[in-house]
């Protein structure tokens, strides 16, 4: 007889499962963590390579000559910016027109749900200015975008200068097969969101914007430039976008190939590449780089202006110029040449970038790990939940379980989740009236209050519970909760692997081993811990008090991101992870 249909063998298998369940779970957990840490080990990674045939190798001749003139333009821009106290719209329009572009502007305004204390804005009004370089001989069906943000103060003036210099140089060439849109956006991400919504005729975030008068066709790729100094020592590539979405790896490959050709130092996550992968420090360096990427991806916020393009299936990345204390400096002409080379290669594209990976992790700029290699780490963690569910199912087999008893905790948990999602923003006025706090603090503190109130629920709802907790009642609840968590984490990991993995890493062990009377941690602790870890990885460790303030600002930024750009981390945590957690919390106090 077969292995599973033979009753003897089945019983043996089942007894094996129930006897060794805990050890197998522990082994799986260790294996999952070890697999994840092993991803940064260089022999397990692959070298990056160009997958798109149309982009070929880097054989173009870059001839951009006017770096100094671009910096001069940047200085003019900064002077006009100071004079106008914001975006110098008229000067920009005039300059772009003199370079032969078709110039258009877009006005937008937005009232944030509560004041943003990090960037100090509440009522945001601004203008985007963009100029379109029409392809000389091609139909206007495809476009490429180069953008630079107009930041307050002294930031990013050189970026706008290089953008205008490149616009002038590109205008003189005849080989463009796609329109190139040069965009200067105000109020960084908010302006970019307004522009993208206007371009694609969608309105997902409730912003007010004037419709775009000029359009360029379907955007194939976009680059955002952030340059705040005349010379740079290295160029940093930022890939993580909204909801942890990443651009096609070919864009990173293109950047790396050109960096190597031109001889510019290039980094990712602000960390240089090292050659000594077999030493401990080299390996830990790679682990740090990868962990930084994982944390940034898990936060679900766009880490550069490019992050909002990804939602429209436009491959985009941000290039940041970094000026640190190093002898070898790269000037603006070289940066212009690098961008020119990249745009010439993107010009050769015939279809959207799709040949390379969309899901990957990069322990360094020249090596990557694809989804096929990193998913088993999560799979091992999810396996623990499934083994636990099997174990519970076997234990519950003899007295048939009643599902209805589970319904009440489920409903109450989800209602609490809905409360956590809606209350903080709606009740901020009331909170401000009664307590001496600012609106932002009110929102954050309301969120924490609702969260803690939810934790106190099980004590109170037990009185309401009909069908008093039988001895095995908690097992039914645990079975449902474990399966729910497994499905939830699985779906999250598919969309945003880093978020799913970090949640799994912290939630799964406790979820697996929770029984009445056993202590456990909460997702809030996960967040607190990750904040500290993130700061540690960036080599800017913080004291506890600063860490706590950072933690509060992270919560407020999460809520803002959801309201402004549609980030899904906050609703996911409030509406799904938190109720699921409350079910486990209920089990703790099952009496």
């Amino acid at each position: 007889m077969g292995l599973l249909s033979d009753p003897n063998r089945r019983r043996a298998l089942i007894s094996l499962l129930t006897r060794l369940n805990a050890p197998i779970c522990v082994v799986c957990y260790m294996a999952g963590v070890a697999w994840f840490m092993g991803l940064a080990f260089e022999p397990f990674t692959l070298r990056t390579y160009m997958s798109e045939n149309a982009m070929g190798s880097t054989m173009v001749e870059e001839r951009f000559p006017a770096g100094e003139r671009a910096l001069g333009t940047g200085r003019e821009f900064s002077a006009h910016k100071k004079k106008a106290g914001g975006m110098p719209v008229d000067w920009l329009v005039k300059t772009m027109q003199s370079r032969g572009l078709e110039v258009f502007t877009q006005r937008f305004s937005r009232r944030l749900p509560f004041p943003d204390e990090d960037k100090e804005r509440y009522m945001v009004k601004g203008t985007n200015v963009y100029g379109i370089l029409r392809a000389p001989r091609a139909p206007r069906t495809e476009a490429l975008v180069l953008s630079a943000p107009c930041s307050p103060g002294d930031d990013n003036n050189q970026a706008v200068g290089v953008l205008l210099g490149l616009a002038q140089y590109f205008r003189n060439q005849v080989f463009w097969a796609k329109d190139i849109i040069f965009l200067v956006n105000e109020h960084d991400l908010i302006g970019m969101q307004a522009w993208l919504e206007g371009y694609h005729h969608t309105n997902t975030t409730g912003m007010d914007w004037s419709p775009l008068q000029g359009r360029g066709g379907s955007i194939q790729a976009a680059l955002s430039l952030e340059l705040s100094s005349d010379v740079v020592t290295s160029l940093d590539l930022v890939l993580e976008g909204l909801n942890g979405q990443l651009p096609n790896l070919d864009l990173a490959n293109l950047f790396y190939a050109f960096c190597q050709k031109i001889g510019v130092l290039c980094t990712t996550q602000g960390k240089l590449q090292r050659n000594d992968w077999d030493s401990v420090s080299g390996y830990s360096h790679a682990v740090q780089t990868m962990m930084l990427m994982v944390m940034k991806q898990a936060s679900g916020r766009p880490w550069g202006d490019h992050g909002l393009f990804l939602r429209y299936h436009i491959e985009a990345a941000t290039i940041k110029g970094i000026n640190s204390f190093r002898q070898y400096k790269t000037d603006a002409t070289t940066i212009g040449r690098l961008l020119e080379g990249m745009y010439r290669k993107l010009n050769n594209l015939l279809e959207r970038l799709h040949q390379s990976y969309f899901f990957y992790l990069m322990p360094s700029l020249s090596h990557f790990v694809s989804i096929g290699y990193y998913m088993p780490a999560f799979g091992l963690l999810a396996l623990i939940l499934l083994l636990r569910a099997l174990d519970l199912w076997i234990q519950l087999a003899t007295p048939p379980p009643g599902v209805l008893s589970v319904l009440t905790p489920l409903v109450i948990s989800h209602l609490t989740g809905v409360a956590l999602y809606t209350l903080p923003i709606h009740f901020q006025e009331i909170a401000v009236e009664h307590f001496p706090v600012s609106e932002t603090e009110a929102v954050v503190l309301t969120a924490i209050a609702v969260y803690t109130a939810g934790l106190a629920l099980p004590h109170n709802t037990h009185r309401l519970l009909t069908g008093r907790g039988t001895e095995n009642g908690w097992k039914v609840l645990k079975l449902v909760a474990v399966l729910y968590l497994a499905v939830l984490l699985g779906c999250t990991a598919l969309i945003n692997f880093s978020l799913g993995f970090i949640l799994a890493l912290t939630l799964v062990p406790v979820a697996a081993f929770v029984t009445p009377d056993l202590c456990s941690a909460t997702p809030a602790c996960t967040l607190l811990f990750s904040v500290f870890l993130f700061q540690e990885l960036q080599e800017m460790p913080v004291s506890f008090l600063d860490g706590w303030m950072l933690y509060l600002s992270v919560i407020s930024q999460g809520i803002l991101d959801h309201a402004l750009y549609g980030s899904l981390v906050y609703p996911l945590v409030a509406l799904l992870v938190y109720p699921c957690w409350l079910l486990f919390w209920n089990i703790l106090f099952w009496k």
Partner: protein
Amino acid sequence: IIFYIFSTLYFQLSFSPLVPQENAGQFFSSGHTNNWAVLVCTSRFWFNYRHVANTLSVYRSVKRLGIPDSHIVLMLADDMACNHRNPKPATVFSHKNMELNVYGDDVEVDYRGYEVTVENFLRVLTGRLPPSTPRSKRLLSDDRSNILIYLTGHGGNGFLKFQDSEEISNVELADAFEQMWQKRRYNELLFIIDTCQGASMYERFYSPNLMALASSQVGEDSLSHQPDLAIGVHLMDRYTFYLLEFLEDIHPSSKANMNDLFKVCPKSQCVSTPGHRTDLFLRDPGSALITDFFGSVRKVEITMETINLTEPIQQRQKETYSYVDQLPVSEIIHQKPKQKDWHPPDGFILGLWTLILLVFFKTYGMKHLKHIF
């Protein structure tokens, strides 16, 4: 001295056909009377610029050596000269630094863009075209035509890719040539192919009077020659580049023969190993001139005498046309594919079988072993 001049003149005159009547028969039984060329580029897209440049450079040589546009069927799958990405519009260069523009201003493309398909190619070869097809798109060859067929593009073991959507296999090509032989559409045919693993395309030929050259053997890739950094693409493939250089030295009265052509692009220059096939060619390759295929050389001899062609030429025997002779059938049937090397089974297969056997024996116990052995 005058006597000397007269004697040399007389001597020269004596080398012209002394008895023109007898030599007339020999004069007209030389083999072919007209030349045709079918030049095909099968790939489109900007990064395949080099295939168009390959085809155009062969077109240029063939035209220079005398074949007129009416006898050339040029098929280009994409328009590189007017591509939006071309920094030098209306040109296609074959040498870097833009030394040689093979596009020129008198290029006549017969099949362009999406018209270059396997079906159209085979119809051109076999002559089965709809009645409305113009003459410039037809291969109007007869049984005294020497045809040059040049193919370039992306290929593999046994196939050539047409425009990213279809392929022609070596079997189809061999059958098309057999149809041409049966319909007496060629006297001799030279087939040149410049693709990866090009030698696989002529493996299956079985019709007489075919000679084939390829840029690389099975398992080898044909490499491109040089990129031009201003244009941003590779301009030519290596084999055709050296073929072009070789052909630039050929002029209409050149006596270079096929053996010289076989030496074009040795492995040191081409990196791949060019191959050729002459077993189906009934003449000695050394007696076939380059201009027999690449040029349209008219045999003209000037004589001051009148020739009386009153008697029929005796050497031509009366032929009743029936099925054309082919190679012996046994040779066709036993055309075996090349012997592949025996590889030991993969470790994976071995491991899988070991696993299956282990599970089998574990489940059913070792006592069954003795039933097997």
